[in-house]
């Protein structure tokens, strides 16, 4: 039998037939890949006062895959201005989902909060190659299952190509080739640079034009990476971060404090502070999907964060976080982000009362742990 199959003859007609089948396969795969370019819905809550685009602050970004939504929440009283960015790395879902939760629940009494949920919108249109990551993950909500995209750490190469052999970022640091598409290595950006540098420049323009006082960048990292469950702070925000950490510890949430290294350039927690003079912090939570020790990568791993390899690694003392059979579910990671944002706002109110930002209608971290994400997503 195998000999017969092996010896099948081909001619021009079989070539045409196979070409047609190949075309059909390309169309089906193309539809699947193209669906990644469709943005999932975000339903802002009643606290939203204005919605715009990042290109409003840097018009050359308009119409490009780097343009993205900016959601503004303004209080009745004057106060400080805070920027929250999620999705700088779209393969770090807790940062994105925490931003969506903010947009759908937040109400500001004093000051202003600007939220960019998809800081690198292009990265949401593709996956990281060779990671076998799922395209989407599902969160159960009161209105039914809700899907979110799991994107790539980097800008889609379809949108920015080719990568240089070595990349000197706008802050003057030499990096490896791929980092040219990593938004969190491209600050403070270049107005006429690569697409990712333009996105970074547009965010800097937003910070300048909106008079931002505090920038909070939401991220995740692999459980075996030392900078995890952490608040990374710029020199100018050391006191703010320390007070936030103490407040979180009182509530029973352990966060490390990590000073932003002065010679690690191009990252938000360094350049937002150096180039724009604001208090910059970056929040890290653990994400097994990003790690090298993970087993099979599934949508379930994104949401439940349970992986037997990580359990084994923890028992061998190889992780920088506590890890048990319960894993590190997305709800817990989002709860940590929301708790950290709240703690930073409370610390700011104590340090600079005239630049305080007061919010309401945000769930506490214990409430998210008890009830899950569903009740807080529309």
């Amino acid at each position, binding site marked *: 039998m195998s000999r017969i199959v*092996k*010896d*099948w*003859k*081909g*001619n*021009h007609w*079989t*070539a045409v037939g*196979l*070409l047609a*089948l*190949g*075309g059909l*396969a*390309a169309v089906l*795969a*193309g539809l699947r*890949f*193209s669906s990644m370019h469709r943005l999932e819905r975000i339903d802002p809550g009643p606290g939203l006062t204005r919605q715009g685009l990042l290109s409003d602050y840097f018009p050359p970004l308009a119409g490009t895959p780097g343009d993205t939504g900016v959601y503004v929440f303004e209080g009745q009283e004057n106060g400080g201005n805070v920027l929250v960015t999620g999705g700088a790395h779209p393969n770090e879902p807790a940062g994105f989902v925490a931003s969506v939760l903010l947009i759908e629940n937040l109400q500001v009494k004093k000051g202003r909060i600007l939220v960019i949920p998809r800081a690198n919108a292009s990265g949401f249109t*593709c996956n990281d190659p060779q990671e076998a990551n799922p395209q989407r993950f599902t969160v159960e909500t009161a209105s039914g299952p809700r899907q979110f995209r799991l994107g790539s750490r980097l800008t889609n190469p*379809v949108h920015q*190509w*080719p990568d240089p052999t070595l990349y000197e970022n706008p802050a003057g640091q030499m990096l490896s080739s791929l980092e040219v598409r990593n938004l969190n290595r491209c600050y403070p950006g270049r107005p006429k640079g690569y697409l990712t540098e333009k996105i970074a420049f547009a965010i800097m323009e937003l910070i300048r034009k909106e008079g931002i006082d505090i920038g909070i960048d939401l991220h995740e990292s692999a459980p075996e990476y030392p900078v995890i469950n952490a608040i990374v702070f710029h020199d100018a925000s050391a006191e703010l971060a320390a007070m936030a950490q103490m407040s979180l510890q009182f509530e029973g949430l352990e966060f490390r404090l990590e000073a932003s290294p002065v010679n690690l350039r191009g990252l938000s927690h360094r350049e937002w502070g150096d180039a724009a003079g604001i208090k910059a912090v970056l929040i890290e939570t653990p994400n097994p999907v990003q790690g090298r020790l993970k087993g099979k990568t599934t949508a379930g791993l994104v949401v439940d964060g349970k992986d037997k390899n990580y359990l084994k690694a923890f028992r061998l003392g190889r992780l920088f976080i506590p890890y048990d059979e319960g894993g590190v579910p997305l709800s817990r990671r989002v709860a940590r982000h929301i708790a950290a944002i709240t703690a930073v706002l409370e610390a700011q109110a104590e340090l600079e009362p005239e630049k305080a930002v007061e919010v309401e209608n945000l769930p506490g971290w214990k409430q998210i742990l008890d009830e899950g994400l569903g009740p807080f997503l529309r």
Partner: protein
Amino acid sequence: MDIVYRLIVLYFVIHIVIHLFGRKKFWDQFSAVVVLVLFFLRLFLIK
């Protein structure tokens, strides 16, 4: 830059199609088509 990328991919697509019609064995043709599917996606900047 898009046009440069597309021209490079198109060059390879043409060569693979010529190779496909030159093969006399079914499985050789099949292998060429499997490669072509990926190149089609690149040609239209989908993947």
